[in-house]
């Protein structure tokens, strides 16, 4: 058979590609449950991290059960709706208008006081950014935050994940009396107000993304927070 002919070449390519596709599909299906578990454990780890509980990934399931006493889903009017908070896909919810969003709420019990943990999701410079923000019982004072990103620039925008940036949010408030003001992220090292934190130098666009994300999501949760 002519191994350089067109027929042979086409058949060879088709057979190879089909074979490879089959092998990869089986492989991916075999590993999927484990991969999903890893991602869920990391999510639990992040949620706990927003209330300053740092655990290893494989211990997160147990710690999550211990500290998170309640989880539910609300709508933009602040009413509870059907659903499990943990399984709400934030990426899918992100593009919707507030009225159509499912808004998950986790309630943690930290040394006897209730903390409300709200997920947030938005866009940085290069791609999605997300995180969790925990509020004290007054639903206005921030207790802790955690942020993550998929592809911000290391050393610049990616610094939103570091404690130096996240830590600034503690004890800031998102309400001015009855008005939701969210948190402003200011350039320069002069953020002294109770609604402001410092931006990351060199990561202005990512910082702006965090500001927009908080404003948009806290806006959606406003009715719930005022209850």
């Amino acid at each position, binding site marked *: 058979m002519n191994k350089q002919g067109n027929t042979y*070449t086409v058949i*060879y*390519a088709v057979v*190879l590609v089909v074979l*490879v596709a089959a092998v*990869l599909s089986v492989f991916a299906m075999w*590993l999927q449950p*484990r991969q999903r578990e*890893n991602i869920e454990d990391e999510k639990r780890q992040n949620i706990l991290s927003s209330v300053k509980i740092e655990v290893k990934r494989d211990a997160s399931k147990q710690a999550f059960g211990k500290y998170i006493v309640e989880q539910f889903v609300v709508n933009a009017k602040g009413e509870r709706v059907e659903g499990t908070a943990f399984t709400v896909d934030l990426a899918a919810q992100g593009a919707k208008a507030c009225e159509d969003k499912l808004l998950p709420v986790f309630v943690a019990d930290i040394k006897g006081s209730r903390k409300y943990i709200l997920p947030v999701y938005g866009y940085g410079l290069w791609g999605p950014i997300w995180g969790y923000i925990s509020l004290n019982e007054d639903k206005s004072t921030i207790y802790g935050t955690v942020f993550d990103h998929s592809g911000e620039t290391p050393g610049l925008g990616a610094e939103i994940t570091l404690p130096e940036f996240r830590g600034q949010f503690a004890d800031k408030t998102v309400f001015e009396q009855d008005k939701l003001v969210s948190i402003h992220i200011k350039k320069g090292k002069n953020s002294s107000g109770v609604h402001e934190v410092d931006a990351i130098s060199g990561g202005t666009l990512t910082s702006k993304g965090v500001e927009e994300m908080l404003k948009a999501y806290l806006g959606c949760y406003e009715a719930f927070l005022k209850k």
Partner: protein
Amino acid sequence: MSKREPLFSAKQRALMLGPLSKNNPVIVQILGICSALAVTAKLEPAIVMGLAVTVVAAFANVILSLLRNTIPTRIRIIVQLVVVATLVIMVDQLLKAYAYDVSKQLSVFVGLIITNCIIMGRIEAFALGNKVWPSFLDGVGNGLGYGVILVIMGACREALGSGTLLGFQIVPQGLYDFGYANNGLMILPPMALILVGIVIWVHRSRNKELIES
């Protein structure tokens, strides 16, 4: 009939051991530098990356050596890419399932093994013209040659830049109390380039025949 060659004859051994030093892909052939600089800020990702490249290089060489007489010349490179890409995706999926934290640290660099010149280079230069067993040794040797350099760099950069090895503190606390500070420059990419330069310098001064006149 000629006598069968032993599995580890002198010639076969040279295939595997050559790339570790005198024919090293990174510091002699200067291939695969990009990922060598990117993933060596810590020792653990450097080790995993070295292993991943070794596995991919070895199996890609074996598979393409098996197929070498069937591949139509015109789509040779595409076939190579398909095989390498398949292996890399498998490694990536395995890491995501069993070494999630390392896979997050390595992020895109696992996927970029596909474009690592060492792998395509060994397939073109060796596997397509040699039998399966020598091809396997050649792949393992080149993968390990790459891995060795990564481990040397990862160890230096983590020890000097973070004061740890594999996450364990190795610089005694007393030294810090005395005023010693970690060298933050070590963790940044430019220092990796300088370090490769130093490794090449040391290596050439010990192997004088490698110095170009």
